[in-house]
């Protein structure tokens, strides 16, 4: 928005008068339980304090009390919107530590669910972000409902695969726990094709909409330098002009087998983040198709299926594994002591690091932009507070 | 039918209340509102007199007064708001840097 229009507001709202406003933890756009203490000068935010921890569940301590067999299902609960990525990070850390080979089919299956999860997670992001900007009683809700409808289709796929819709426990150390049921591949292809078309519809609906552009363009700019200093990752850093994607930079789980593009935008604003994610939607479905085409036969796990909770023992040592989740780098750090449980575990949540950028970019924006920026960061508080 | 003199009397009462308000209040905004009360009283009188004289002139005059009132409010509030930004408290009596 041009600076002239901003001035109108500043004039109207009593200049030096500052108002402290509490946004959250109980707030429609707190994305769970985020609390932002905003200092307002009129409508303009001049300062922001972020308070987190309202959803702390001792996840890392929990990790020390549960075995390598048990924990993958719990890992789902850190980032409950993208449970597959967290599970993968955990089991990969364990596999690195135990030098456990993973069969090719399992690797492909992991990529498959990972990318489907990315689609589902981005659906939630787009819906909630639009709802933040457009209101539960307006166009935002319409987009939200569309997105949720498509996400449901992905969740249906997961349900057919695992039996659960949100927290899966699909991965296990050495591979996956489940193989594809009959007919699943066909349904999956249809779903992905269908969602691809729908993404086009959303883009038409949003990108031809001046109001949407006005709210997204030039808002919440994260400069390249800031992005690297804060250490944000995922779509955020790619929207700020840094070509960094773990799938590319440090391929895991056979990602090197697939042909996909890493979208990079340079503007660093909400719209750039939106564009990056919209391209990722399509790239994910591209990967999904490649996986389905080239899915090798073979075992789905190098280790036997789950029979008892203590069956996996990892030798002494420590390892850090990271995967590219929908929100960025999801890392898991494990210290093993040779028993069936890790001695110490630590999560590196993408949302947590991404959220740290907010106090740097929000001051100077209007109150309405705060929620737009928050939404574009796409935090999931299960992962932030753990 | 209510005679016009009633309206004029009412307007005079309003005017007096406005004057008293200006004199006894300290908050410039309230003073200003009291002044609006005075203008309003004048308007009422103008309409009543116009009625009495059988002409719509009184109403035309009120139209001008409304414009003046609007202009005054715009300027006045801008002045009051701008000075208040300089000083936190808002009371006419405290503006006693300079005395009578």
């Amino acid at each position, binding site marked *: 928005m041009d600076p002239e229009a901003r001035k109108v507001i500043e004039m109207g709202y009593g200049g030096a008068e500052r108002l402290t406003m509490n946004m959250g933890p109980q707030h429609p756009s707190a994305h769970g339980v985020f609390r932002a203490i905003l200092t307002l000068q009129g409508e303009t935010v001049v300062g922001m304090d972020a308070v987190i921890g309202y959803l702390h569940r001792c996840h890392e301590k929990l990790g020390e009390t549960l075995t390598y067999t048990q924990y993958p299902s719990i890992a789902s609960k850190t980032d409950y919107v993208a449970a597959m990525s967290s599970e993968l990070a955990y089991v990969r850390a364990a596999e690195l530590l135990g030098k456990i080979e993973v069969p090719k089919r399992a690797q492909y299956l992991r990529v498959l669910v990972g990318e489907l999860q990315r689609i589902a997670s981005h659906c939630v992001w787009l819906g909630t972000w639009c709802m933040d900007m457009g209101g539960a009683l307006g166009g935002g809700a319409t987009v939200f409902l569309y997105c949720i409808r498509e996400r449901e289709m992905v969740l249906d796929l997961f349900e057919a695969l695992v039996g659960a819709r949100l927290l899966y426990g699909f991965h296990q150390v050495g591979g996956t726990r489940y193989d594809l049921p009959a007919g699943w591949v066909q349904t999956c292809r249809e779903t992905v094709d269908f969602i691809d078309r729908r993404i086009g519809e959303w883009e038409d609906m949003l990108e031809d909409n001046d109001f949407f552009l006005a709210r997204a363009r030039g808002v919440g700019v994260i400069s390249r330098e800031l992005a690297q200093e804060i250490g944000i990752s995922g779509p955020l850093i790619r929207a700020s002009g840094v070509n960094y994607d773990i799938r590319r930079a440090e391929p895991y789980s056979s990602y090197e087998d697939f042909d996909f593009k890493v979208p990079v935008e340079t503007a660093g604003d909400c719209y750039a983040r939106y564009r990056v994610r919209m391209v990722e939607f399509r790239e994910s479905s591209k990967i999904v198709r490649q996986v389905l085409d080239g899915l090798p036969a073979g075992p789905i796990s190098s280790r036997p299926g789950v029979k008892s909770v203590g069956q996996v023992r990892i030798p002494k040592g420590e390892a850090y594994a990271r995967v590219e989740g929908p929100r960025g780098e999801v890392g898991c750090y494990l210290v093993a002591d040779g028993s069936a449980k890790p001695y110490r575990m630590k999560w590196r949540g993408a949302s947590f690091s991404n959220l740290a950028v907010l106090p740097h970019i929000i001051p100077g924006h209007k109150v309405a932009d705060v929620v737009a920026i928050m939404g574009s960061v796409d935090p999931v508080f299960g992962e932030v507070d753990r | 039918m209510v005679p016009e003199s009633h309206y*004029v009397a009412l*307007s005079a009462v309003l*005017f007096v209340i*406005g*004057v008293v308000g*200006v004199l006894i209040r300290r908050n*410039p905004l309230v*003073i*200003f509102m009291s*002044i609006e009360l*005075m*203008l309003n*009283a*004048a*308007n009422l*009188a*103008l309409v*009543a*007199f*116009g009625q*009495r*004289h059988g*002409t719509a*002139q*009184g109403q035309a*005059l009120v139209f*001008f*007064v409304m414009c*003046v009132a609007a*202009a*005054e409010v715009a*300027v*006045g509030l*801008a*002045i*009051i708001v*701008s*000075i208040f930004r*300089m*000083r936190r408290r808002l009371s*006419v009596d405290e*503006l006693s*840097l*300079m005395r*009578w």
Partner: protein
Amino acid sequence: MLPLISFRAIAPGMALAATACLLLLLDLLPTRGRKDHLAVVGLAGVVLSMILSLGLWGSDERAFNGMVRLDGFALFFNLVIGFATGLVLLLSIDYLRRQGMESGEFYILVLFSAVGMTLMAGAGDLIVIFLGLEVMSLSLYVLAGWFEGRLEAGEASMKYFLLGAFASGFFLYGIALIFGATGSTNLDRIAVAVAGGAARDPLLIIGFGLLVAGFGFKISSVPFHMWTADVYQGAPTSVTALIATGSKAAAFAALLRVLLSALRTVQPDWAVLFWGLAVLSMTAGNVVALAQQNIKRMLAYSSIAHAGYILVGVVAGGALGGGGVLFYLLVYTFTTAGAFGVILLLERDGREAVAVSDLAGLATRHPVLALTFSVFLLSLVGIPPTAGFVGKFYLFGAAVRTGYVWLAVIGVVNSAIAAYYYLRLIVFMYMREPEGSPTVLVPSLPAGLALAVALWGVVQLGVLPAPFLDLAQAAVIPLLR
């Protein structure tokens, strides 16, 4: 029925208004912060307006259904207002830049207020007087608080505004009651109604009283003077000059026109009222001025006292008194604008030198300026051969001729009292040595020009007053017909 639309009748005011609108556009041109050209264009507009006034001299007509009058009276005041506005524009150019408050809106608002003044001078209807008053006042309210960030400026602006709006309320209710009594707001029709017996109507009497309260505020006569000192002190000095000269002249013009054309038949009645106001203003103004240590405040009380002197002429009435008032207002415009112009040029320790003690030793360092200031001060006292003497002479002379001898006596006594505080300034300039760092003169070509014009006016009107006196008296004649 459509009224007679006569652009001739409003030409001088139109010239000013058009210039103001032109400035609005010119202000948009990028000029790297310099706004001098706006002042120059504004000045050209003022000069044009004055030339138009001179060109129209001798016409006597009514336009827009009696809303506007074009007569010698209005034209004479257009000249006074033109001088006041022009001098203020000249004085402001460097002054504003020095204070870091230069802005195109300043000149535009000065012209706007000048338009309001000409409206008041040429109004044939109470509602036009009211609207002109508001145009003038609204601009001046803003101008008075121009030095944003200075406490006294904000206070001046707010006090001026609140009390001004309060006075407008009285003025308006006065109009309403007069409308009620006479069925019209047109001065001619009011005159007819008054002659026809409405004069004894309590409505008219009270309405007129309220109207006088409104005028009293603008001419800053006691007891409606409370704002004067604060506003004079807090406003930018050039704006103070405008408030003291132009706005006062316009208010007197409207007052005089109402009195002489609408209420002439009942002159003895209102003369009593103004007798009281004149005495109160003169005495209170002069006595309080004695105690002032700030030159701007001192001049404010002096201006209250001068309102009293001028009211003496109003009391006298007729061609003689009216002519005296007009002439004195012209004199007062030159003198006061000049005096404020001198103050505005002085600086001490990087701030405006407005304390009486700041003048100490001025004569040794800036003899020309000290001499100029002395001439203005002597004119304010009323010492021959300055214009002030001639003006007072005619005012008091008119009072004596019309039988208000005591009033004239009080006026003269007051002038003697006033001499003390004016001469005190001269004493400081010539006979005291400064304490601390000396006051310095800030050279400014436009302001020098303004001072030269003002000085010329004071000397010219003092030495050769006759043509101007004739002009002033001729200007009043149309009102008396």
